[in-house]
């Protein structure tokens, strides 16, 4: 699409011959939060650094607001970046840390304007009462607020946030995340947000790009990804709990599930290309119905139980594997108990056993 604010195409980068980015393609649209979600070492930080111009790319193109900035100096890209490690300047107090970017040669503002903007930004992030403090005396949460304030104060065309909250504890992370989203709404900003935390990504992002081993595996809204996960890796990363996987065999018009008595009709999967043989069946836990005792289509036992307050999740052992599921309201199961389960017909996806790619074409284009 041509309306992208940031467009990355074919980014490649190797460190000492070891590829970190193997062809990254995605775009961030104006006024959206785009989360780059993937495990440690997936290439999130390299991608952010490439967008910022902090990385010498081996190949690829970075377009910012319709302009090719691939070979343009970081200082001339009009981006702000926030790092996981805060990277505050220890010799300056909070005020001067925030004001620093406004005093740089490229973005020099007069002191009256700087004062106004620093105070306004500090108010927004609730650190106005810390402006005189030495950054060394701040707590982790306060330091990260200063780092975010320093990025916000400049009003660049886009923000790049690299795991900005990972160093903070859970409660603080949650609070800052909703504040960030609020600030984003109030200021109509555009944000590229890298994180390894699924919950962190879905509670802030408009769209998500799933990254692994230097490639974007899928991007879209969370509903789009749920409606058709591109491969096994995406299924394992998304959802709470994540997708349940079963070894399956397609024979004629039936899908046999290993370790289960239930068979599923093959037609609704809409297989194209390969239509029989060993595959992996992936099912969202919401499409599996767990029953007490031996009443379900397949018998299993409860491996472990996880209380979450309003809901209770269980891990089900079906002999040849395990899956996790949030129980229906009012349902209780104990560790070691026998139970049954049934997979809803028409739900689930078939994946290639070797490549992990999704072979089913049902729900295509449909968002739940």
């Amino acid at each position: 699409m041509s309306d992208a604010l940031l467009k990355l195409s074919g980014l490649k980068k190797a460190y000492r011959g070891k590829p970190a980015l193997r062809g990254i393609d995605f775009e961030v649209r104006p006024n959206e939060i785009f989360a780059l979600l993937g495990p440690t070492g997936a290439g999130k930080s390299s991608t952010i650094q490439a967008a910022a111009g902090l990385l010498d790319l081996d190949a690829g193109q970075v377009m910012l607001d319709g302009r090719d900035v691939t070979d343009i100096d970081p200082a001339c890209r009009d981006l702000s970046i926030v790092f996981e490690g805060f990277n505050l300047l220890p010799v300056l107090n909070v005020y001067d840390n925030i004001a620093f970017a406004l005093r740089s040669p490229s973005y020099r503002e007069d002191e009256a304007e700087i004062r106004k903007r620093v105070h306004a930004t500090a108010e927004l992030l609730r650190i106005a009462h810390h402006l005189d403090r030495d950054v060394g005396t701040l707590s982790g949460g306060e330091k990260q607020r200063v780092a975010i304030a320093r990025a916000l104060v400049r009003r660049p065309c886009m923000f790049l946030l690299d795991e900005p909250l990972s160093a903070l504890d859970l409660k603080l992370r949650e609070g800052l995340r909703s504040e960030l989203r609020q600030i984003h709404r109030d200021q109509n900003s555009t944000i590229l947000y890298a994180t390894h935390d699924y919950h962190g990504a879905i509670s802030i992002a408009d769209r998500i790009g799933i990254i692994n081993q230097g490639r974007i595996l899928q991007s879209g809204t969370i509903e789009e990804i749920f409606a058709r996960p591109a491969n096994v890796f995406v299924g394992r990363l998304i959802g709470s709990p994540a997708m349940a996987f079963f070894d399956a065999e397609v024979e004629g018009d039936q899908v046999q599930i290993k370790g289960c008595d239930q068979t599923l009709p093959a037609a609704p999967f809409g297989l194209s290309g390969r239509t029989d043989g060993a595959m992996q069946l992936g099912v969202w836990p919401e499409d599996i119905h767990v029953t007490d005792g031996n009443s379900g289509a397949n018998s299993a036992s409860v491996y472990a139980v996880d209380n979450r307050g309003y809901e209770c999740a269980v891990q089900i052992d079906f002999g040849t594997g395990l899956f996790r599921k949030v129980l229906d309201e009012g349902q209780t199961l104990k560790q070691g108990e026998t139970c049954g389960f049934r997979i809803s017909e028409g739900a689930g996806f078939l994946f290639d056993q070797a490549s992990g790619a999704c072979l089913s074409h049902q729900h295509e284009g449909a968002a739940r």
Partner: protein
Amino acid sequence: MAKVELKNLSVEFGAFKAVDDVSLTVEDGEFAVYLGPSGCGKTTTLRAVAGLQNATQGDILFDGERVNDQSPSERNIAMVFQFVSLYPHLNIRENIIFPLKARGMPNAEIARKLDWVVGIFNLGDELKRYPGALPPGTTQKVSLARAVVRDPAVLLLDEPLSAIDEQFREEMRWELGHLQRELGVTTIYVTHDQREAMSLADRIVLMNNSKIVQVADPQSIFFNPNSEFAGNFIGSPSMNFIDLSPVANGFRLGESKAVLPTEAVPEAVRGAARPIRLGVRPRDVQLLAGPGTVRVDLPIEDVFSVGRERYFTFRLGDEIAQGVDARTRRDADTAINLRPEGLMFFDAQTGQRIAANGAVL
């Protein structure tokens, strides 16, 4: 296995009281989780139980016997730390049987113990491998196997999952819950992660500022927190806290114009001559009206999808509060609906919960 009792335990570092008059009984076979923010005294308590830290005051009893003066090795405890500390030059089998060999256990007995623990921990395929070759979740599992192989009276775990990557952490959380119940060993577990505490604990011991705030099973502490601290610390997304100020037809919510009707606040709470704060979990704030819900008119700010459900936010003056809604479409929303059973009231000054009968919990 043993019952562990702490009686008026205090640990002081100079003028600083790291643990302040803590009393608690952990029953035989129980999984107790000490939960709290950094610096609340939970690890110091654990170290005192282990004998790695001297108690300044109070008694520590294992099965009724005072162990204050026993060394860590005499207490028959096993401890697992945040950072995996396996011997890198020994393979997994040698690591696990190390404590048994150190005690001079006969080889036949060692083999029997090893079989037992390898079966439970499902480590059969890893025995000949070295710690460096295993993923972090598995190495922590080996540390646990090594800890329990010699039948400790008490298993002490100090944030064993916090140094592990997110993806392995959830895996290990499930595994730990399963294993502890299989083993039935008395376990004291320290964490700052409320999700771990909720999913693993038989009982949660919530600590703050060196003191115990609340001791209860996960469901009770979640649905019946005794204070603002407990309500806020447990549960995700976090509980909303909103100051109430009396007006003609009810209570004004925060700095907004929205009013919580009088009847939504129990009479005994209304009568309390102190400023009141409302606590309500986002899941008890909905866009759609339900049976018995309390309607409050105010504008909805933002609605966004978080997978299968939606969060929404509403503004109360400067404060932003949050709700959860299962609806997939958004209309022009001009009200929130509060589930009455989810409304909790706190003393705005002390943070203590005020029960429906007016009693301070």
